């Protein structure tokens, strides 16, 4: 009996095929993830070059950190506002652009194009537009409205950051919804019409259930994405005014890279990882309740 049986050879080929991707994720995902966990148990003074094991001390600090609480509240507002606005706007646009009318292609392109623009360039342009004498207030002034100093007021700054991010990315979800809408079989609508269902009922009873897998997908990626929004905050508000837009990932950056508390920064990223994991898990579990074909 030879060592290289058919089965073993088959396995080896299989492993070789997945090896490049596997090595990549070990080196760039699993190892950094483990290192972050390890750093979070240490006090790392970058300048002094000291690295000292302190056990759970960083986690105790996490619990007592008032600024972290503020930052979690800001994160909840930001993520909540972003997800609701992004998904409803994306769905609305997709439904509107799913009509067989002249010019829809033009509008689809128009709404999708911000997705392709460089993030920082996009944000810098918005920063100019949102200045007290910027074009947003210029437009408002045209209608006789005296616009606020968007990026300097606590609530208007949060709204601005959310809107800038939604307009940037709504096109992506819109395209996903469009694809899903076009997969809904037309005979279903015809049958419902014959049964006397109005447009709103058809939307609620046919469209929504049939595109629910896409709603699940878009809501997961939008929520996870909203927790990782960094550049817009860094450019537009630097977490201000006050700490009103200091979301978790920006707070993490401040602690680790600005205040040189790398160990504590790592601890916050463990927290962020846990939040993302829990949210995703909850959504994945809940899919049985409302996503078609999943129960």
């Amino acid at each position, binding site marked *: 009996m030879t060592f290289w049986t058919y089965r073993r050879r088959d396995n080896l080929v299989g492993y070789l095929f997945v090896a490049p991707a596997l090595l990549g994720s070990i080196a760039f995902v699993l190892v950094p993830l483990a290192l972050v966990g390890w750093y979070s148990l240490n006090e790392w003074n*970058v300048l002094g070059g000291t690295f000292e094991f302190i056990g759970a001390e960083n986690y105790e600090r996490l619990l007592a950190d008032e600024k972290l609480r503020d930052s979690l509240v800001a994160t909840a507002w930001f993520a909540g506002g972003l997800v609701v606005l992004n998904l409803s706007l994306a769905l609305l646009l997709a439904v509107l652009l799913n009509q067989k009318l002249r010019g829809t292609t033009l509008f689809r392109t128009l709404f999708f194009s911000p997705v392709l623009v460089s993030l920082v360039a996009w944000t810098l342009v918005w920063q100019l537009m949102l200045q007290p004498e910027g074009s947003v207030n210029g437009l408002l002034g045209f209608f006789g409205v005296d616009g606020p100093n968007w990026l300097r007021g606590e609530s208007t700054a949060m709204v601005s950051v959310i809107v800038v991010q939604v307009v940037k990315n709504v096109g992506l979800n819109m395209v996903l919804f469009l694809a899903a809408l076009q997969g809904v079989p037309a005979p279903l609508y015809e049958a419902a019409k014959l049964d006397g269902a109005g447009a709103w009922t058809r939307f609620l009873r046919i469209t929504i259930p049939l595109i629910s897998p896409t709603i699940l997908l878009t809501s997961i990626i939008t929520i996870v994405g909203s927790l990782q929004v960094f550049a817009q905050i860094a450019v537009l508000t630097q977490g201000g005014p006050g700490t009103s837009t200091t979301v978790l990932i920006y707070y993490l950056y401040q602690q680790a890279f600005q205040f040189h508390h790398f160990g504590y920064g790592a601890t916050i990223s463990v927290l962020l990882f846990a939040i993302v994991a829990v949210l995703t898990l909850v959504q994945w579990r809940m899919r049985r309740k409302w996503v078609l074909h999943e129960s």
Partner: protein
Amino acid sequence: MSRLLALICTALLALTACGGSSAQSGPKTLRMTVWTANEAHLKLLTEIATEYKAAHPDVTEIKFDSVPADGYTTTLTTQIAGGNAPDLAWLLEESAPDFVSSGALAPIRGKVEKADELVPSATKLWEKDGELYAYPFSTSPFGLFVNTDLVKELPTTWEQAVAASAGKNLVLPDFKYQNWAVLSTIWRGWGANAWSEDGKSCGFAGQEMKDAMAFVHKAIFTDKAIPGPGTTVDFFAGNAAMAVSQISRAGALKDAKFGWTLLPLPQGPKGDYAVIGQAGVGVLKRSKNADAAADFLGFLTNPTNSAKLAQFFPPARQSLLNADTLAKSNPLLKPEQLQSVVIDGINKGVVKPSHQGQEELNQTIRAALDPLWKPDANVGQVLDGVCAKIKPLLERP
């Protein structure tokens, strides 16, 4: 499964094998991070480096690595954290206490030529226990640039300066309603301080500070002299009556289409004062070539090269601090301006506020001051709030 494990182990081995390090012998290369990308600055630095390499064949390369000034310290510490520390680095005054006290820098006094002629107000920030940890290569006083096309009568007090620039813009180019330390160029005239000399107690709630900040608030929202939050006005393009800036900015006025002059900072209620911005060059202790780096630093900052660098970076050497020497390298400024702003400024000036854990203080104060930048702000209340927020940070051992 065992094959999978073997794969993982190999990957881990490959990763950890890169970690080894040892002191270099033989040809050496040096890297210095700087925040300028100005061609004239880099040209002069490269010239000095070329001269040094000619005399020291073992140093084969000296590279000046331009890192954007915005976020400079963050980039530098990230490089250090990533095990990619430069051999030499420019350092901002505000990060001086952190770098000097942490032990990240190598001592350099022995390498500095004629170290005893350095002005004490310039070296103070870079010393610990009598040793020097960075060379103060730029000691740049703040002055008041005035657009003489827009302002006919030159101000000598802050009251006059604000009155003369009402509606015509008095700008603080680096402030941007974030870098609050720039405001020390005003509040020092009221005798106010961000914190006490020992750094332990907060100065924001003091009466001097409240008076000074009430003056600033009025200058912004009532007198409309200082441009409000979110508005940018460029003095150097001729759009403002006055600007509080460092004399190193005078170069930007070379081709100015308007008349201008440079004055010392106006007087506050407490009379004359000066504020200086500083920058040092340090040698990173963990550099494999720390010795060679310190040696090059000694050469870069010797009296001859300091005189050359003086055209961009005001020197801290007493022998160079006279109007004649400075005039040679600063053709845009008149000898009396050099005397009153630069030389007097360096000798009597206090450095912009700096403290251990500066960046955390910066962000905390920035956030606590934000409510002040509204027309109806209660100045006293906001400033009391600043002290409440930073007290724990100042009292940290």
